[in-house]
């Protein structure tokens, strides 16, 4: 069974996926941060590949990307860093990033290197379903990678079903139509998540964007299989030197 399937089979609820930016806060902290997340109880790691123009992310994540790029992070270096990953990380790892660096690297080479490193899935928010289906899906499938699409409260039922059918691993429900890191009105979010529940989708649903503490995490988990934390964790890491302790403390606060 794949690592992603495994997580949801073993633990259908309260799955905690935490985002971190590769090469942040230091260019060499990619694996130490992932290790700290695993040790602290994260179920999935979403590893951000820094990009100069991350449209779907907010200020906090863009700043972490800028710092990572200034530190010399590149896709080649990242795959170099990830080579020994599976000696120490046993939870699923999903790469998140933007199409342009991936295209420059070579889409097929990217998938091959990701699969070789033991990466489980990809999130490329600016790759739309049409281009995915017609050009890229066959390559992603060939390397046994999951591909995860985003849905929003504005996504129609027909389109949610289509994106669900194209996704594997899980479906990423953006908790409001907004870039990462904004405060949310949770009542509207809950309505939307309830609607998703009623569709009876193929994939488990993880809620992203705006989750930052125990309260928002447990509320999101009521209507979904789990949640994704991004900006709040990056903010917590900023300026810290003891990454393990910071991470432990942060995750403890979320899980209660």
């Amino acid at each position, binding site marked *: 069974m794949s690592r992603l399937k495994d997580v949801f089979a073993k633990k259908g609820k309260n799955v905690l996926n935490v985002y971190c930016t590769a090469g942040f806060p230091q260019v060499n902290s990619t694996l130490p941060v992932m290790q700290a997340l695993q040790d602290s109880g994260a179920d999935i790691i979403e590893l951000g590949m820094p*990009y*100069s*123009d991350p*449209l*779907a992310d*907010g*200020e906090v994540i*863009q*700043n972490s990307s*800028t710092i990572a*790029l200034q530190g010399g992070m*590149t*896709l*080649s270096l990242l795959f170099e860093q990830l080579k020994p990953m599976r000696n120490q990380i046993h939870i699923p790892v999903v790469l998140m990033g*933007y*199409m*342009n*660096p*991936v*295209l*420059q*690297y070579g889409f097929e080479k990217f998938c091959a290197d990701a699969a070789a490193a033991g990466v489980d899935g990809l999130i490329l*928010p*600016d*790759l*739309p379903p*049409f*281009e995915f289906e017609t050009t890229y899906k066959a390559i992603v499938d060939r390397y046994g990678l999951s591909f995860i*699409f*985003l*849905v*929003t409260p*504005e*996504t129609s039922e027909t*389109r949610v079903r289509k*994106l669900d059918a194209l996704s594997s691993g899980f479906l990423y429900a*953006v908790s409001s*139509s*907004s*870039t990462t890191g*904004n405060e949310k009105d949770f009542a509207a979010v809950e309505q939307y998540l309830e609607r998703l529940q009623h569709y009876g989708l193929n994939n488990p649903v993880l809620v992203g964007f705006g989750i930052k503490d125990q309260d928002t995490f447990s509320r999101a988990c009521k209507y979904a299989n789990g949640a994704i934390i991004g900006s709040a964790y990056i903010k917590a890491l900023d300026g810290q030197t003891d990454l393990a302790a910071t991470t432990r403390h942060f995750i403890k606060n979320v899980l209660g």
Partner: protein
Amino acid sequence: MQVSYKQPDEQGYYGEFGGAYIPEMLYRNVEELRENYLEIIADPAFQKEYQLLLTDYAGRATPLYYAARLSEKYGTNVYLKREDLCHTGAHKVNNTIGQILVAERLGKKRIIAETGAGQHGVATATVCALKGLECIVYMGEKDIERQAPNVARMKMLGATVIPAKSGSKTLKDATNEAIRDWINNPNDTFYIIGSVVGPHPYPDMVARFQSVISKEIRAQLAEKIGTELPHAVIACVGGGSNAAGTFYHFLDEPSVGIYAVEAAGCGIDTHMSAAATQLGKPGILHGSKSFLMQTADGQVEEPYSISAGLDYPGIGPMHANLFVTGRGTFLNATDQEALDAAFELAKLEGIIPALESAHALAALNKVSFAKDDHIVVCLSGRGDKDMETYMKAMGTKV
């Protein structure tokens, strides 16, 4: 299959370039526009209002001026399409008038835009004032410092100017911030993009609104020289909207030469340049696939040009297709060549061009045309906004 150089296919592709590489959070807004724009634009009531505003408000048709002394100097017949005489001083208003009418018909109440030099910001603030709609313009922090008069104009017109503080703090970052604003305001907001860039259907929509330029050129040439077709048309390319408008009705006329002029900055080999076809590779920026200046790792590179309006690391997908198919000839002019062309036009014809347009004029030095040829250069804007740069060039203290 490429049916025409001027329009994309159903999915928004000009050959291999274009498309709509957008996150799901933007899908509904872009889809709403894609589903409706052609019908809205074709509606006779829309056309009536659009044409009336172009005529009575923007001051169209703009003249096609036979530049006798310039023609003599270059040994050919040079016509200037006088977009500099449009209300607000550049071609940008052709597009903002069109888009504000589309926004209105989609029931949007809040308008956002990005701007570099401030010309598109001013043109957007202008039409928002005209329609009584809220206007928010994103502008790079660096550009706000460099373009103070246009910032003041936008404010006087009632717009809110928000500094883009991320990344390089220039046009590309202002565009990122505008897109983020749109993601955060998925219901009431319309994004007026200022060039033939962005996700489908923006490049096509903006090209259609700017195509009035070549439509008028054809009619004006017919009247002046008895044929609608010149030997060549020349325009500068930042994102490429004045060029798209100037080329549009000639793209499928093989006898007409198409010349696009990019900003070479300090020179193509100096790392201080904005010539995207010369220095870029195919890539994705702001929702479409096109030529993009980028590092080997796929990070977007910071362009440079003396002219803020050409200081963009990409070009519209229509132009990328003209470049790779060879339908268009892509030239470039350095800062100095543009300055020289601007001073030459001022002295020979009594017209002070925008620095962007001066790049198009500089092409007259780079291509030789025959004595009987008829050449049209798009004078996309006037030079008022660039006086500080021109004064520096003259050694005048500002």
